[in-house]
């Protein structure tokens, strides 16, 4: 591996990792607040891909991108209202099954509506423009992804630490019931969480699929699982953790594929999960939690 190809792979890895990071934030935020693995998050991400395909048929990308973000956010909030809110107090397992049910429904619905065949992802011309830096060449999206990710994360952290909504979110994630007693509007806070998560998933989806060029109803499953693992790696509930986890998994995966182990690149992620759970269950940045007896 020459130095140039090495950097080429690093760049691809960072770019993939950026998209993963954006999705992982959605998992980590929802988990932080509802203690729920939102199994449907990967499918929301997949649906954002289809939204883009259909928006680009009629609209130019300048309109299509905000439209996709809007549709994805609506989808995310509707899922929360319909499938999670009614059973918020039910046992954890019921909520997880409900999440799986939603994921199953979205996949089947997508198969029904769009068939299981891969659909071509539209090209956004300016994102595909090839750039050359030294001996490394890549499309603009590869350079944009990490930068955009970092900017979004900084914005999000500012939002969480310095606004009223952010404070409400922090309070709810620390103690659901007390936050409710203190007059925080739980429903609004949770909806906000889903809005942010879905919005980031939509952006992640555009960045991810632009590099992949096609979408199927099952394109969300594996990236979804990987991003959840990224969130666990960083420490579930921690946003910087999710970002670091996303980048780490993206880079590792790219290098495994580059070295010819593409079949095992997915398996690697899960082996990584088991190793983390074995040695550091709270992840890299997670806080230790003590269950009260």
């Amino acid at each position, binding site marked *: 591996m020459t130095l140039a190809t090495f950097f080429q792979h690093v760049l691809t890895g960072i770019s993939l990792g950026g998209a993963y990071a954006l999705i992982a934030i959605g998992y980590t935020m929802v988990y932080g607040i509802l203690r729920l693995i939102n199994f449907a998050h990967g499918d929301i991400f997949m649906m954002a891909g289809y939204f883009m395909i259909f928006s680009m048929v009629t609209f130019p990308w300048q309109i299509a991108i905000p439209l996709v973000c809007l549709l994805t956010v609506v989808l995310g909030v509707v899922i929360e209202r319909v499938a999670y809110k009614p059973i918020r107090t039910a046992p954890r397992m019921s909520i997880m099954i409900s999440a799986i049910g939603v994921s*199953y429904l979205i996949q089947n619905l997508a198969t029904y509506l769009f068939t299981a065949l891969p659909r071509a992802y539209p090209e956004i011309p300016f994102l595909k423009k090839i750039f050359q830096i030294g001996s490394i060449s890549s499309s603009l999206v590869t350079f944009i992804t990490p930068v955009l990710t970092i900017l979004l994360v900084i914005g999000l952290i500012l939002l969480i630490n310095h606004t009223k909504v952010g404070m409400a979110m922090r309070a709810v994630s620390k103690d659901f019931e007390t936050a409710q007693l203190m007059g925080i509007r739980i429903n609004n806070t949770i909806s906000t969480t889903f809005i942010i998560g879905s919005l980031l998933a939509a952006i992640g989806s555009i960045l991810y699929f632009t590099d992949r060029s096609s979408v199927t109803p099952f394109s969300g499953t594996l990236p979804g699982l990987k991003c959840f693992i990224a969130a666990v790696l960083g420490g579930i509930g921690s946003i910087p953790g999710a970002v670091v986890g996303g980048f780490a998994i993206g880079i590792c995966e790219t290098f495994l594929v580059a070295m010819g182990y593409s079949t095992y690149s997915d398996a690697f992620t*899960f082996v990584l999960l088991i190793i983390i759970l074995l040695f550091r269950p709270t992840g890299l940045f997670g806080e230790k939690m003590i269950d009260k007896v």
Partner: protein
Amino acid sequence: MTKSKKMIYTAILGVLILALLIFLEANKTQYGMAYTILQKGIILSVVAVSMNLVTGFTGLFSLGQAGFMAIGAYVTAIFLIPVENIKDVYYISGIAPGILSFKNWLEAGPAFTQMLLPYIALIIGGVVAALFAALIGYPVLRLKSDYLAIATLGFSEIVRAIISSPQMDTITNGSYGLKKIPGFVSIVETFGIMVVCVLLMVLLLRSTYGRAFRAIREDEVAAEAMGINLAKHKQMSFIIGSFFSAVSGGMLAMFMRSIDSRTFSVSLTYDILLIVVIGGIGSVTGSVIAALLVTASKEWWLRFFDNPLAIGGVQIPFFRTGFRMVIFSIILLVVVLFYQKGIMGKNEFSWERLEKRFKKLISPKKGGAKNV
């Protein structure tokens, strides 16, 4: 109701089922659909009960069923494919010499081993899956159940990836899958294996270990304070559940005659979850009933959703390929959101319950009064 009366009823029910199965076996061609559906339902009921053992009775949310079934299916298939068919099956890269000589040795053995081979294969498949379960269960079961869900789901995907990888070509035939797997002798045999498996799990659940599992489900802190070793018992339940999932996977391989890694995708696990949820999380009989019901409605009764339908010359909208699965996922969601107990809740079938229902049906006043 007296004990002897109950035993008579049970015996009658058993004879009736057996008679039905023998009848179906004799008229296989005529009732092909019913035969296939029933057989598949029987097989899925084993894995549904095994998932219920782990999820419903021990409270561990495991989503690795498809992976364990894949292990069972491939082990069973490799054991059972006759040596004469090996060349046809492994036509791409050939079979690993070790396996071939082992199979030659097996086939040279005495006749009765040939007869027992399917059962041996199923058990070995189960044992292999149980070993894997022990391996992943050790780190994961000590943590909260959410991680178990993700880790088992991931495990299941890893198994699939490895099975279909080119490096495994000489063992699993990579992505081409295995075919020409000998099937069951008759549906009675399928049923017999299922009865043995389910009976073993029911006996386990009724034993002192089963009670310990339930204690863990109810309250882990209290269970531990009562001297129940959490890690050990969770591990036990997970391993036993995986064993039976793998047996069911092996049966599925014998039923389908040809398998490939796509058969064992995550959606298979979701299908089984659907069965368990509809039957009632924590009810063995519920799982068995739901396995039959769900299989029948999915593959047979609700097939019409997938075909364009015209009534009186008017095309009914929505009816086309894939609609059935949409309906199915909606059913799952509706059950989870509104009927969390499923068909049976945590109850089991009993003649008393049936009698009560029956009496209620005949004279509503009498039966309804005593319901405290």
